[in-house]
């Protein structure tokens, strides 16, 4: 009997100590992990759409609460600001639209003063290879550059991909969604920096 109690006590203590230590390590690494994730996953896209900034857009990211998901968890829009001399002159964030094979995620860079697109980069899609997937080609993405966001963007303003109407529309939809977000949250995006 004494043996059994000793076993239980020792194992419990070891597990408790392990749990405590891991909780502490998790707490310490939580911030750096989020940063490292964004740095490796999002930075290439941010770099593709913004230029001429002297800050670290990943580090200066702004989280804007934009609603709740089905489970009631808050959803944040992550905005990457591009600054020069401490002033935000452009922002990049993601918009989504529905393409042919699923959602298309587009990182959109926007010049705040001119209210136009500095560039877009497709960050996630499941379009048909060789057809819809050509939305990732620069020939397509470059045609968004410099387009004004004063009005909704239309498909005839860009180099639509023949044979991939849905993918083209989905990308434009994603950009327009980003435009909507910009109008709604512009103050917060500028303020954040």
């Amino acid at each position, binding site marked *: 009997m004494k043996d059994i109690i000793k076993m239980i006590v020792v*194992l419990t203590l*070891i597990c408790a100590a392990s749990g405590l230590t891991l909780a502490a*390590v*998790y707490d310490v*690494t939580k911030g750096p992990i989020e940063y*490292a994730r964004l*740095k490796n996953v999002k930075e290439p896209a941010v770099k593709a759409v913004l230029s001429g900034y002297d800050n670290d857009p990943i580090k200066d990211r702004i989280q804007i609460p934009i609603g709740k998901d089905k489970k009631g968890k808050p959803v944040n829009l992550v905005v990457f600001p591009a600054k020069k001399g401490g002033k935000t002159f452009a922002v990049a964030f993601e918009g989504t639209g529905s393409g042919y094979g699923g959602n298309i995620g587009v990182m959109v860079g926007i010049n705040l003063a001119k209210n136009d697109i500095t560039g877009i980069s497709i960050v996630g899609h499941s379009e048909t290879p060789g057809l819809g997937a050509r939305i990732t080609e620069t020939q397509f993405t470059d045609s968004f550059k410099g387009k004004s966001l004063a009005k909704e963007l239309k498909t005839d303003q860009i180099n639509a991909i023949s044979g991939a109407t849905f993918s083209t529309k989905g990308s434009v939809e994603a950009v327009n969604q980003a435009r909507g977000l910009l109008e709604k949250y512009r103050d917060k995006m500028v303020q954040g920096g």
Partner: protein
Amino acid sequence: MSVVKEFTKGFWDILPPFRLVLGLCPVLAVTTSAENGAGMGLATTFVLVCSNVLVSLLRKIIPSKVRIAAYIVIIASFVVMVELLMQAYAYPLYQALGIFIPLIVVNCIILGRAEAFAGKNGLAASAADGLGIGLGFTISLFVLGGVREIIGNGTFLGLHVLGTSYEPFVFMVRAPGAFVSLGVMLALINWISARLEARGRKA
């Protein structure tokens, strides 16, 4: 003296992948490049040293009937720690090693050393044992990864060493190449040690 011996035995006498032939799963899977090999080796070394030290400290407290469970909890905690730290400070490496980081928990070298050595020996000897075996493991993985990277990709630590005219022998960085290079390496080490033994007998 004995501490030094416990440390150095990991480099040859019981060099993990080649002499003990243990922990082959990560050896085969992650040695596609020298960098991945070294990263995996160092992660394993960290876990091995920490678990050896802790097991050795607790060896008189842990009842022998539940020792394996206790060892696994200790090892698993250190592995999760490595995983979190690697994610935070070496993300590309974390992505390259992927599932093989959590799988260090079931790496037989670590449980093997806890059971066969740290559970019976003092603190200093156990730490030396863990460090020696871990570094031996790291060097093995580094060499194996280096050989496969040079032949299979024409690069070493990401640098082109064989010139642009070299056509990479991709077979070597794929799964079959792992078996072939491990086999060749094993044969080489066995041959060297047989020669050494023969010379020792003569002398």
